[in-house]
Every structure is written in structure tokens, then in C-alpha cells.
């Protein structure tokens, strides 16, 4: 089982991990009470991909609002990417946001400050 496909809900993002393409995508809001229940399996997937796949990994994020517990979980994922990047594995993040909501860009920017791998914050206009 190398594919990850978690449907979204009102308070949790939709998450797809495509092993052969090397893409992990997430869309939506994330404010579950216990973010670890949700992100634990995503963290496992990323860890395994970086250990076994031997291919570049790209995150395509269309995340909007994150509660602090989700922010902590996402930081754990970015820490894994940072570690991989130091080991010369190609990893990158593209964070897409609606240009009318600058809060999302600010949130992405705070994550980017702690990352040295390629991290793009891309406005999407309707």
C-alpha cells in the first residue's frame, strides 16, 4: 500500500499521496481537535517515501486555515523534508493560495522561514 487517499471533511483537509509521481497534495482547512490522529499516517507516508523511493518529493498544498495543532503536525513534515534536503534528496513545496486572503500567504511564509529547500508561495487569482 503506497498510495495515500484521505477524503476531506469540514475540519480536515483532503490528502493524496501519489507514490509513483512523488507528489503529496493537501487541500482545505485543517482544525481537528487531535491533529495527530490525522497527520500521523501522512508523516509515516513521507518518512517511508524519503527512505525508500529514491525519487524527488513535491508537496502541492492548497491549505487554508490551520489550527495550532495542525501547524505543529505540518512542521513535523517540513522537518522531515529539511532533513532529506540536507542529505541531498530533492524535495520541494508549492503552497498555492487565493490572492484575496493574505493570511494564508503569511502562514506559509512563517513555515518557509525555517526551511532551506525550494519552497514557493504562489498566489492564485480567481
Amino acid at each position, binding site marked *: 500500500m503506497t498510495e495515500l487517499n484521505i477524503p476531506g471533511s469540514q475540519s480536515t483537509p483532503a490528502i493524496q499521496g501519489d507514490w509513483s509521481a512523488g507528489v503529496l497534495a493537501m487541500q482545505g482547512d485543517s*482544525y481537528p*481537535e487531535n491533529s495527530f490522529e490525522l497527520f500521523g499516517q501522512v508523516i509515516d507516508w513521507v518518512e517511508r517515501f524519503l527512505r525508500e523511493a529514491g525519487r524527488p518529493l513535491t508537496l502541492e498544498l492548497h491549505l*487554508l*486555515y490551520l489550527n*495550532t495543532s495542525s*501547524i505543529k503536525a505540518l512542521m513535523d513534515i517540513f522537518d522531515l523534508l529539511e532533513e532529506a534536503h540536507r542529505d541531498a534528496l530533492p524535495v520541494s513545496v508549492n503552497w498555492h493560495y*487565493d490572492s484575496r486572503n493574505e*493570511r494564508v500567504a503569511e502562514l506559509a511564509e512563517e513555515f518557509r522561514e525555517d526551511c532551506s529547500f525550494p519552497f514557493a508561495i504562489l498566489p492564485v487569482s480567481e
Partner: protein
Amino acid sequence: MDTYDLLAMREHYHRQRIMLCFNGPISRSLIEEIGNALRNYLTAEQAQPSAAMDVFAVYIEMTQNIRHYATGMNYTEQDAAATVAISRDEAGRYVVAAGNLVERADGQRLVEWVEALAPLDKAQLKAAYKEQLRKPRTDERSSGAGLGLLDIARKSSAPLLASLKEQADGRAFFSLRAVI
């Protein structure tokens, strides 16, 4: 009192410019449903997307902090109640307030925490937030509502206000007010 004076309650809420309020045992799904109502309300009021997101975020952090505390303390459903009000002040700024029963010593620590945050500017709050974010999860639990409180403080346009009113059985009612 033989009947509730709903009209008096309604008039009181109007005077206080309360647009949404809740009092009672709070569950995960209730937090989401009230959050939904809040978002719809903010959309109808044509709040800026960034302001709407800040109000929603502060509401979520406050109510989830209350849930985490009550769950961690194994409170009964009745004791795991929350009182939440979202209003606008004279200047039209959004105000999010929430209160719950806590152990008196925990409440005192929380009030001291909030008071310690008051003099910090945005840059200092950001540094404290990033430091808290890096703490292991076990530390986070023992220190209580740290990260959520810092997030609320960062999204507020004025220092947070906290108060503690002593109740029976060694408990106290903690309330927190944030102006967005």
C-alpha cells in the same frame, strides 16, 4: 424565577452587541457547528477574509483549549461546559470571549501567563510562539494551553484580558477576552 425572560436576555445580548453566544457542554461537533455559523455570519457581514479568518481562528483555539483541558482533567459533561460570546466593540472590532471552570491553581497560572504576554510586541510574541512550537508534545501538554494562547495573542489587536472568579470545590471560572 418561574420563567426565563428570553426577551430580557435578547435585549441584553443586543446591548452588548453579541452576535453569537453559547453556554453549555461543548462537544467536538458543536465547536464545528458554531464555527460554521460564525463563518456564515462573518461572510454575511462582509468581513475582510483576513479578519474573518482571525476571528474564526481565535474562536477555534479558545474552544479547543477548553475541550483539551476538560478532557485532560476527566471532567464530567456538566463541568466540561463552556461559555462563549462573539461580539463587536464600540469601534466595530470583533471580540471573542470564552470561559470555563478550571482548578483554581491552573486558573491562577493561566492568568499570570496572559498577563506576562501583555507587554510583548508582535515580534516578541512571534519569537515566543516559534519557541513553543518547537517544544516536544509532552512539554506542551504539561504547560497547558501555551501554543493556542500565543496564537490568540498574535491575532489580537490589543493585549488579552483574563479573569478568574472563585467557585466552590477549589475551582474557579476562567475567562479570556481577545479583541481582533
